Structures are given as C-alpha cells and as structure tokens.
C-alpha cells in the first residue's frame, strides 16, 4: 500500500526535456493508467517512480517519505516490463524466486508465497518451464507472479500487454485489474493504447510531450477532455475536429454555420470537436450540416462508420445504423448536435460553457 506523490518533477537528457514540471498524486490502492503516444515521457516517469532513473529536479514521496534519490530496493516496488521480461535461462520458479532473493523471508515463507502466486495465476503446471517454452500469455502471468510475490507497496507496469495478440490482451486486461483489486495494491500502468486506458484505469493521466495534459476518471477524460490533444487521443472512432470561428452564438467554418443553441462560447477562432456518435447524417444542403463526400464505409456489426471528406479534405466520421447505405463519392451532410460539441481555443485548451 502506498500513496505516491510526484512534486514538480523535471527530467532532462542533455538538452532534451523528457518530463516537464510534473505534479501527480497517486492515491493509495488505485489503478492509475499513464496514457500517451511514444516519447511523451510516460515511461520515463515510471522509471523515476521505480528508481531506475532519477529526476533532474523535483521530489518523489512514498507515503510522505522522500525517496527521490533512493535506488529501487529502497522503495518496495515491483515492476512488470514490456513483453513480459523474464530471465531467459531461468525456469519460471527460479524467475519468481529471484524477486525474493534479497528479502529476509524464511525458506518456508518463500515457498508459500511462490505457491500462492502460482495458484493465483494458474502457473502450477509451468513452474519448471523456461520462458522460451511458454506462450506470450503464460509469460505475462509469470511476470505478474514475479511481481506479486514480493507483496510490494506498488506495482509498476510498463506496457505489459503490448506484445500480445488482441484476443489475449482482452482477457488479460480484466485479469490484471481483478488481481489488483483483490490485492488492493497501488498500480501504475503505462500504455499508449487508449482502449486499455479506458477499460483498466480508475484514473487516467494523459501525457503529451513531457506534460501532463489531464488526469481524471475515464468518464471525465472522455466526456470532459481538457484539451484538443486529450479529446482526439481518446475515443474510437476518433473525435471529429472542424476549425472555424464563433461570432454571436454561431459557429462558422467557411460556408457552414452551426447554431450553438444558446451556448455561451466567446467570439473568436475555435476548433469544434464532436464525437462520431453525436452527429447525424443528413442531405448535403441541410441547414447546419457540413457538406461531405463519402470516402469509406466501415461495418462494425452493431453499427457502421461513415468516413467522409469535407470541402477542405478533412476526414469526418459518423456512427450510423448498420443498415445505412452509401457509395463512395456520394454527397452527404454531417450535422453535429450542438449540445454535444466541444470547443477548443487556439491554445488547444477546452472552452467550457
């Protein structure tokens, strides 16, 4: 159990700024997902929490105790790495044992913990196999077992599912969350996959270019994105963005005018964002609709996605019923529901109203 606080963390490599003034409070027992594209500083941050790397400036506190300069073993953490890293020449049992090698546990206690972890992760038949003899999912379980036997204050997971195939990822996602909730251990999970973030996290910290863009529950991140970056990074299919400006309660983008139905958006240049489920497909000349040309139609079974180009070549997406028919090149209109639109200022921050 641990509450982890990052205070004004800054990390630079020579002139490259990897993490900039990061303040982050990780609540005891929560599953925090750090989400962002590669190079956004999420893994660097995880390394600093682990003690594998040290911040250039700032402080890290575990339960109020400063650990900024402490090596990993001073922090009581366990880490699962990308592609479920294990010592390749050691059996699963020896790999798990390696986690406890320098603990002060008695032999019996160690054996007990290994047996418990193996049972919990259904690894018993595989304890004497080498990592190379196991499937990706089994390796992932072994790496998790290696992490939990230490009974750490905090799990740190660095894209542990990214090397697995889609079906396995799906089942391991819920397995990991279930395990974390049963153990009640704080977990920090780094990923670039927004679906993983949305489905696993109690809270999500979205990072971009070394900055924390937003932190909040999946619901907050999805429904109240703080910035254009967060809005476009989360959601599948992605949010539609239309650049234009607002004057007198009406959004203009070229010839298109959308009445904002009384929403108080200040005049000036803005980007309108609307999710594909909050638009309706209309005739091309309907009032308040953006005229588009159909580019592709994707069938998802329960629904379909119309992908269409607007006059500027910008791709817009609309969720439609599976029975919807359109041909490539057809002219349509896409009408955003004014109440579900987000507006972002020129600085990329959301204008709330």
């Amino acid at each position, binding site marked *: 159990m641990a509450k982890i606080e990052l205070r004004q963390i800054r990390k630079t490599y020579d002139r490259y700024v990897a993490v900039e003034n990061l303040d982050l409070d990780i609540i005891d027992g929560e599953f925090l997902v750090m989400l962002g594209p590669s190079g956004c500083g999420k893994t660097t941050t995880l390394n600093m929490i682990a003690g*594998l790397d040290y911040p250039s400036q700032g402080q890290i506190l575990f339960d109020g105790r400063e650990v900024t300069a402490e090596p990993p073993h001073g922090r009581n953490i366990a880490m699962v790495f*990308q592609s479920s*890293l*294990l*010592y390749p020449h050691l059996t699963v049992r020896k790999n798990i044992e390696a986690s406890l*090698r320098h603990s002060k546990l008695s032999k019996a206690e160690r054996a007990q913990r290994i047996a418990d972890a193996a049972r919990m992760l259904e690894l018993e038949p595989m304890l004497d196999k080498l990592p190379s003899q196991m499937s990706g999912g089994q390796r992932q379980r072994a790496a998790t077992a290696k992490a939990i036997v230490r009974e750490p204050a905090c799990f740190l997971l660095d894209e542990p599912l990214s090397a697995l195939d889609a079906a396995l990822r799906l089942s391991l996602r819920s397995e990991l969350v279930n395990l974390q909730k049963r153990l009640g251990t704080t977990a920090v999970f780094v990923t670039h996959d927004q679906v993983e973030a949305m489905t696993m996290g109690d809270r999500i910290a979205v990072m971009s270019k070394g900055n924390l863009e937003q932190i909040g529950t999946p619901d907050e991140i999805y429904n109240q994105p703080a910035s254009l970056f967060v809005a476009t990074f989360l959601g599948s299919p992605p949010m539609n963005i239309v650049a234009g400006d607002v004057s007198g309660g009406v959004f203009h983008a070229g010839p298109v005018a959308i009445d904002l139905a009384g929403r108080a958006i200040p005049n000036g240049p803005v980007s309108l964002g609307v999710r594909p489920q909050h638009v309706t497909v209309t005739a091309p000349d309907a009032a308040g609709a953006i005229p588009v040309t159909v580019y592709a139609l994707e069938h998802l079974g329960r629904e379909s996605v119309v992908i269409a180009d607007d006059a500027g070549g910008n791709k817009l997406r609309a969720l439609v019923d599976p029975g919807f028919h359109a041909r490539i090149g057809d002219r349509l209109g896409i009408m955003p529901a004014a109440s579900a639109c987000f507006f972002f200022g020129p600085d990329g921050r959301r204008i709330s109203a």
Partner: protein
Amino acid sequence: MATIANKKSRQRRRELTDGQFALMIGLPVILLLVVIVAYPLVYSAWMAFHRIMFFGGYRAKFVGFKNFATVLSDPEFWWCTWVTIRFTLESVILTMLLGLGIGLLLNRPSRFGSLWRTLVFLPWCVSLYGAGLMFAYLARGQTGLPTAILADLGMQNVPDFMTTRSIVEVLAIGSSWTMAPLVGFFVLANLKTIPKRLYDLAAIDQLTPLETFWNVTLPPLRFTLFVFTSISIVLSMKLFDLIFVLSDGGPGDASSTLTYQLYKVSFKNLNLGYGAAMSFFLLFFIIGSTMALYLVWGRREKAL
C-alpha cells in the same frame, strides 16, 4: 500427348536430387581436402609405421608399432607434453579472460567507440610471426625494450623474461594477445543482443553486480565462450610459428611444446617415422581435450 509426357519424364530424370546437387557443388572443396588433408594424413600414418632413412639412399623399413612404443618411453616426449599442457592452459584462460574483458569494455558507451573497436581489433590482424618478433623484444634481457626503458630512467636493471621459468608465460601472453580480440568481438556481438530492460529487472530484483553478471550478462555469452574455448585449445596445442620465432623452443627445451618437438624430430633430426608417430599422440590429445570439454561443458550449452 504421349510425346509430351515422354519429354516431361525425360526432363525430370535430368533433375538432380538434393544430395547430388550438394555433392556437385561440394566436389571442388572435397577434392582440395583430399589433397591437403587426407593424403598427408594417410601418408604420415604410413610413415609412423616405418623407419625412414635418408643417408645411403632413401629407404623405408616397416617397423610395426615400434615408433609408438618409443614415443611413450621417451622422457623428452613427456616433458614436451607437460610444456604443451602448461602453455595451453595459460594461453586459453588468458585468451578467454582478455576476450571477455574486451567485449565488456567495448560494450560501454564511449565517445570514441568505433576508434577503440578498430584499435583493439588490430592485434588479431598481426601475423604470429610479427607478434613473435615483437614479444621477443619485450621479453628479452640485454637487447630488450624493458631494459632500454629502465636505462632511460637511469636504472641498471636488466629484466629478462626469456628464462626457463617464465618463457611459457611469455608465449601464453603473446598468443592470447593475438587471439583475444576475436573472442572479444564475438562477446561484444552477443552482449548487444541483451535487452537493456533486463538490467532494470535485475535492479528491481536487487541483484548484486556479481549476480547481475551471472544471470543477465553471462547466459547469452556461454555458448560463444564454449566455442572459443574449444577453438583456442586446438589453436594453442598446435601453435608453432609464434614459438618458432619467439623462443625457438628454448631456452634449452623450456618452451618445446609438442608441435615444436615434432618439428625438431622430423625436420631437424630427420627422424620422419618417429615424428609422425609422435604427431598422432598430439592429434589424440587435441581430440581428447576437446571431447572432454564438450562432455563436461558443451553438452549443457545450446546456441541461442
């Protein structure tokens, strides 16, 4: 229709099987090996069973196993065997340790990485003849480099390593100096395959530097180390040119390894039959030691 089918089957008959094709492209090498390996081997086996005389006309007289029996009762042979063992052990251990060290050092990030790599690799490109001359200058007393340096510093010492006590060590250092870079580069290539995150895993597991070396760094190297230990055992046991140039088997017979002794018996004393018999003992030693190494070590390793 029939003619087409006929043509087809005739074409098929002209196709080579994999085995035939392998034989065909391998034939030049096989012929070469017959000429340079099989013929000399058979010829020396023939010689080992004969007494060959040059003076008063070339004659060869069949003597059965007499040459082999003489080898076993020859104290000089046993002395040379001991010198060979001592030299091989020292040279192999030194080569492997130096090679491992070179690989580990070159794997560290450094500003002049490629320059270091080139410099370190150069000794391997030096001929054993050249290396022999160089180490002779380093080891020699009166006319050696250490004496000259000490004299420049105003000292009168004459350090001489070409003595009966230390000449084998000088040879071992010389031979490992030429071999170690190659080992180092294979070690380096293996080290490059280790995921960096594995060292992070070791740090999280609180492994000591020695445990980290043992569990992370060493495993991918073990097969390479085994292969090069075998190779350097063979090369050390049959090393000749370096010894010939550096010490000429001396002082006395202090550095007469079996290969040097073979040369002396066969080409200086012209006792070809006896030399040939002795060469088969060397062959058995080489095969025996590499087999033993395989049994105690190699069986447990597999190529990654």
